């Protein structure tokens, strides 16, 4: 306390000039202090958000503002087999990856929540897949999925489980599975560390009470851990769902949406159509399909925020 008091001039004057008065008024000072953040978010987030929705209803191309075409882009997209496949891909990708990440992340969180030697270092290194740039780990996966020099194929051949070569990214279903695996790898640490934080707040007396009542490990998890962890689980899952549906870099680096447009998500297809193809309006309409997911996620998180 003494140190803090010493740093503040004991008899600081209350400034009487106009600027001084503004800086003392909580409303004026508050507005002043949030202005830089609000300006940046308004220009580079809110405005493009609105502009994006508007562009989805236009036939804008690169270099041309375009004009309003109503639901034209959306009608066209619904009849476009590549887009329809992208919708199915997104559902498959997000659903399977999020469920696996949740299950495996929970399992990992439960494992490292125990007391053991090297606990700190294990908790630190398990976060690495989430820390390093995803584009760079995507390159490693691209290399691991190489049709000729894949280390997985090499290992499978070595132990006699495979004989020929496996073209991981050449077959649509295999390519989807490979991408989902890479996404799960990257996302497990996020779930694990988030859920671990929740696990640490669960009082051990609850487990002791459950044990006295004769609960086994599975019952302790199901009747004590799970209900207490549910709100945090929902937050982590909602957040991860948005990020997975909005994924771009893993897909773009590993398959570019291929083979033959079989692994596109909304983001990669929108990039291909708008930035590479120049059809801004159509690309914006594709991006807009992420919005329902976003709105759903916002409603879920508000529901849980309000309950707390």
């Amino acid at each position, binding site marked *: 306390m003494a140190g*803090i*008091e010493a740093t*503040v001039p*004991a008899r*600081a004057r*209350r400034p009487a000039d106009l600027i*001084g008065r503004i*800086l*003392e008024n*909580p409303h004026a*000072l*508050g*507005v002043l*202090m*949030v202005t*830089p953040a609000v300006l940046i*978010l308004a*220009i580079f*987030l809110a405005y*493009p*958000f609105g*502009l994006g929705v508007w*562009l989805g209803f236009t036939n804008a191309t690169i270099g041309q503002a375009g004009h309003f075409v109503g639901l034209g882009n959306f009608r066209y997209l619904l009849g476009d087999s590549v887009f329809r496949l992208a919708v199915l891909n997104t559902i498959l990708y997000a659903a399977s990856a999020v469920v696996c990440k949740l299950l*495996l992340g929970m*399992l990992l969180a439960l*494992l490292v929540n125990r007391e053991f030697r090297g606990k700190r270092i294990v908790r630190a290194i*398990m*976060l*690495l897949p989430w*820390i*390093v*740039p*995803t584009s*760079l*780990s995507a*390159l*490693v*996966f691209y*290399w691991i999925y190489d049709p000729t*020099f894949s*280390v997985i194929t*090499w290992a499978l051949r070595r132990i006699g489980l495979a004989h020929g070569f496996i073209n991981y990214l050449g077959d649509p279903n295999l390519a989807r599975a490979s991408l989902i695996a890479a996404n799960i*790898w990257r996302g497990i640490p996020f779930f694990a*560390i*988030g859920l671990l*934080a929740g696990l640490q707040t669960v009082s051990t007396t609850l487990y002791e009470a459950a044990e006295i009542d004769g609960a086994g490990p599975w019952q302790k998890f199901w009747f004590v851990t799970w209900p207490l962890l549910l709100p945090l689980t929902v937050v*982590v899952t909602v957040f991860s769902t*948005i*990020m997975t549906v*909005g994924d*771009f870099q893993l897909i*773009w680096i590993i398959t570019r949406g291929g083979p033959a447009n079989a692994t596109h998500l909304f983001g990669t297809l*929108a*990039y291909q159509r708008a930035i590479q193809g120049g059809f801004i309006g159509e690309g*914006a309409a594709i*991006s*807009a399909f*992420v*919005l329902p997911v*976003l709105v759903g996620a916002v409603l879920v998180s508000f529901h849980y925020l309000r309950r707390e």
Partner: protein
Amino acid sequence: MRRSALTTALTFTLPLGTFLGLLLFPFYWMLVTAVRPNKELYNLSLNQLWTLHPTWQHFQKLLFATHFAPWLGNTMVIAVGATTVALSCSVLAAYAVQRLRFRGSGVLGVAIFLSYLVPPVILFIPLARIINELGLWDRPAALILTYPTFLIPFATWLLMGYFRSIPAELEDCARVDGATRIQVLRHITLPLALPGILSALIFSFTLSWNEYLYALVFLSSTGAKTIPVGLATELITGDVFQWGPLMAGALLGSVPVALIYSFFVEHYVAGLTGALKE
């Protein structure tokens, strides 16, 4: 209750070991490939999991025959710039929303939380047009100004939690002693919120360092790119894959964030879980 060694091995050591093995294998693979000479790299009869004659040739090629050095510089400038912009804005905004309780601060707090959820895939197409109209195409400023759109919501949200944990009585005492609001912020609140600011700082830096989509869209010339984009677009040329230099680049591009992370693990975890729990 004593557990047998076998039970522990089956329910703990084995699953945890499997997890760590799978989570760390890609890094091992990155390292082993980066130092493996081409003769060994493309010879399947050799043991793929080990490099017999480690070499620096891929690193040399990466550093002297590609644009890796300028990419590294660009990435650094952009990450530092975006972090500086985002943190200055976030510290002020978080303090104002959390402590000053001005008219509309509640609504603003919720709005910032909501903007945290908007994924870049929704924004990159209209943003490309805005960047173009502002004349920022192919310039670091394009990213220094757009990265804060996902850094500010995150950092503000995180800092609001930290400011909330600082007792208001400390500020009141200083006010009674005659300190202005700015003095209170500078001399009392900011020093106490330093751990939170550090968390926000390293998080923002890492997120900027790792960003891919905006960098891919807004930068086009080879020399202007960042590491994540440059490696994936310039070193994969047609059917000729330069796996050695690619993995060397992936390794070098990961090292800065991994280093920062290793020094500040606790802040990192606190930042991540703090943002989740708020």
